[in-house]
């Protein structure tokens, strides 16, 4: 990680990417993720004034206040961040959108919007800080809670969890990853890749809630995550590399060229031969993991060919918000013509 006084390519220090002091609990997974976002934005020399930070409601959704204070932030409504992201990125395609949501925000109240955002391929890095509970409302089961789990007030959870990644792929997602707040290095590389992606980049990060759901038996806890994480690939993000032949089949490395011409080197790990460019393989991986209660992390699925929503919206190249009045209001003659036709 870069030391905090060095300036990056655009002359900013790491501190320029800081947010306000966190008000989350000490040890909360969400804080760790905020820190990785800060690091990555600094490392990639991202202009913070181009970034918008979006969220819903929840402990997780508070996070955007705790990173990158030089970026506009929007703490929207519970479960409704996807729509807000759609509106903002459609009228200003130059913005870099980072969304932070929770498992309740995305999997419960927001499931519909989440899926339709993915289906549209809205250009946003969409992070789900998944802790298996509604933390901010004090620990009820979320839609990703483990079946059979027992919590204080809620009793036993009788329902199967939904899988955010599987949901994303079912909705034709173009970038789906899973990670673990306890593995900051992987979170960082995935964030870099996501920021280079042209559509919705869904990253489901198991982010333990130390206050309400960090029991060893919870699949959303640090201990469980540490014990069970199976890293699918060693990921190396290579910015602006020379074009390299992409080779999916042979050898131990898969190289994915991102739309912005950066590359991902995915060094296969022996146990897993997962090919993240194969959708059916990805579905199978996820369904198998669900059935066997496994915790594979890394890049699950990627498709750099699917255009982002604003690429298929037939809009002018300039961001709509930058258009001068003359381009927005048709001239007097245009109205005259309309009127002529109507009389």
């Amino acid at each position, binding site marked *: 990680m870069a030391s905090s006084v060095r300036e990056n390519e655009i002359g900013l220090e790491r501190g320029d990417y800081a947010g306000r002091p966190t008000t989350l609990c000490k040890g909360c997974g969400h804080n760790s993720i905020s820190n990785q976002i800060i690091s990555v934005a600094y490392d990639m020399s991202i202009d913070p004034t181009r970034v918008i930070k979006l969220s819903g409601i929840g402990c997780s959704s508070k996070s955007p206040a705790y990173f990158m204070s030089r970026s506009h932030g929007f*703490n929207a409504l519970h479960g409704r961040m996807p729509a807000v992201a759609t509106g903002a990125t459609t009228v200003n395609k130059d913005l870099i959108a980072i969304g932070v949501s929770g498992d309740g925000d995305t999997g419960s109240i927001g499931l*519909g*919007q989440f899926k339709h955002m993915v289906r549209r391929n809205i250009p946003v890095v969409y992070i789900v800080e998944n802790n298996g509970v509604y933390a901010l409302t004090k620990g009820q089961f979320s839609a990703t809670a483990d079946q059979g789990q027992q919590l204080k007030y809620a009793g036993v959870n009788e329902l199967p969890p939904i899988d955010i990644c599987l949901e994303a792929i079912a909705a034709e997602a173009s970038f789906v990853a899973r990670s673990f707040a306890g593995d900051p290095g992987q979170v960082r590389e995935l964030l870099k890749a996501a920021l280079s992606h042209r559509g919705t980049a869904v990253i489901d990060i198991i982010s333990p809630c130390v206050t309400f759901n960090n029991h060893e038996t919870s699949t959303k806890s640090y201990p469980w995550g540490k014990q069970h994480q199976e890293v699918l690939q060693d990921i190396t993000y290579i910015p602006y590399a020379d074009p390299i032949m992409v080779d999916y089949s042979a050898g131990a490395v898969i190289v994915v060229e991102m739309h912005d011409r950066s590359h991902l080197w995915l060094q296969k790990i022996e146990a897993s031969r997962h090919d993240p460019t194969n959708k059916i393989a990805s579905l199978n991986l996820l369904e198998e993991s669900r059935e066997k209660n496994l915790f594979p992390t890394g890049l699950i699925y990627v498709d750099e060919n699917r255009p982002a929503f604003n690429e298929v919206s037939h809009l002018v190249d300039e961001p709509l918000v930058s258009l001068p009045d003359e381009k927005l209001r048709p001239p007097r003659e245009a109205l005259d013509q309309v009127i002529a036709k109507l*009389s």
Partner: protein
Amino acid sequence: MSDTQHTEKISSEDEQRTIINDFQIVIATVNGTGSQTANTILLRSLFRMGIPVCGKNIFPSNIQGLPTWFTVRVSKDGYIARKETSEVLVAMNQVTIGEDIDTLPAGGVCIYPADWKVTERADIHMYPVPVKELLKSADVPSNLRDYVSNMVYVGTLAALIEIELVEIEEALKFHFSGKTKAAEMNMTVVRAAYDWAMDHLPAINPYRVERLDLTKNMIMLDGNSAGALGAIFGGVTLVAWYPITPSTTLVDALREYVQEMRLDPETGKSTCAVVQAEDELAAIGMVIGAGWAGGRAMTATSGPGMSLMSEFAGLSYFAEIPAVIWNVQRVGPSTGMPTRTSQGDVLSAYFLGHGDSKHIVLLPNNLNEAFEFGWRALDLADRFQTLVLVLSDLDLGMNPWMSEPFKYPDEPIDRGKVFTAKDLERLGTFSRYKDVDGDGIAYRTLPGTKHPLAAYFTRGTSHDEHAIYSERPEHWVANTERLNRKFDTARSKVPAPVINEVDGAQIGVIAYGTTHPAVVEGRDLLRRKAVKFDYLRLRALPPGEDVRKFIEKHPRCYVFENNSDGQMAKILQTEYPEYASKIVSLAHLDGLPLTAERLVTLLLQKENA
């Protein structure tokens, strides 16, 4: 069918009477049979003859096979309110023909297919028309016969009430813009029916039209299209919506106008995004996201959709994000009558959302205002950084109206108080929610503004002037007071009411939106009964000083509106509790536009009570 007995004959008086340019036609058909084309052709040809017309489509909430009615009123006096009774019936629906005939006044006229058995009424003129035969004899390909069959009644009517054939031809050309073949084929049928009618129908016909000169330079359009046009000229950049009757055609029209007027001439690419959302929660969310980012954004919906937008409405109000909702009102509560008109969402629109939220509401009454409020709503939203609701309704939105031509916006686009990077450089400081100008409206920056001071954090939670989260009572109170100041600023910046006073008026009448035509006509009717009133037509909420003064001045103000609970009367009562006892609701809702007759009855009942 009905049991009513009509035994009287047509009186000889009636036989001789001729009523020119002052009656109403009703065309009863089955929906999904293409009668809408025939009806608008009729309407437009009358309009082209210089006669003031008004058409109302009374259609069911389904796609095919149910009864539908279209009324065409002609009025030499220029009245464009619906009338309670139609004198001329085109009965093309076998299911309702009995009832339809029953609604005719004595002396009325009924055209119907010759092969249907109907109970005759002696006191009206009944003209069977051999629809099938005429179609067969006309040179129409058999597969298109159903499609053009409605032209038979157009031709018959033309002969009967003396519509000029050339205007029908022109109306057809207009309708089938370009597609001359289609226009001609339809015209063939019109001519055949016309000729047959001239030959076979008796000359006894009390209802006739004659060319006038009262529609010159006027246009004819539906309010949804007018609103869409207004938005286009208001520089709208994002429209997110979810289909719902009767707002759908607003977005349909808007999409077409975007293609016509908002494409970059070089690239053919659009300067306005139209996004069909997955539901209304998403639609308003997209609008809020866009408005926050500096877009000019709107959605169009109806009651159920507006209900779903409640939570976001509160966010727009409290986080101060520009947004525009067009609510083309239909009859509620709940799903209600999706294809009937009402003004039933006024109260919920004004206070949409929990907590103490309240919103600017615009109330267009005619095409011109639909157009004007189309662009002005976007300006007001940007100026006040808040939600603006435009309350149209099915009557204005989906029916064809004649109108003066639209006025090109006489003000430049208003983007409100936005600090650019340059401003920030100059000022050296920025507090998102500070009332710099004392009008309650603070300055904002747009995401993407290239300056280290530009960023702030938007939230629906309580915040201080710097947009920092705060639960301090004093921050809450200060912010609320500023929001209220802002709302008060709006009172004098929203479209002012139109006030029309007359000598000797004892009472006041307040109305808004599509009840207006009935007020205009009702006023003349009442004048004949020696009842005179001053008239205030509301065009926006919150109301300003003019409204207060108007109410103050009158011992009684009757509020006419198309809902059950007298919602605007209630709003005015809370705005002016000191005069509340003078504000008398004459609300009425049955799904149809208000008529002058009903207005007169309602008013006289109260006055004489």
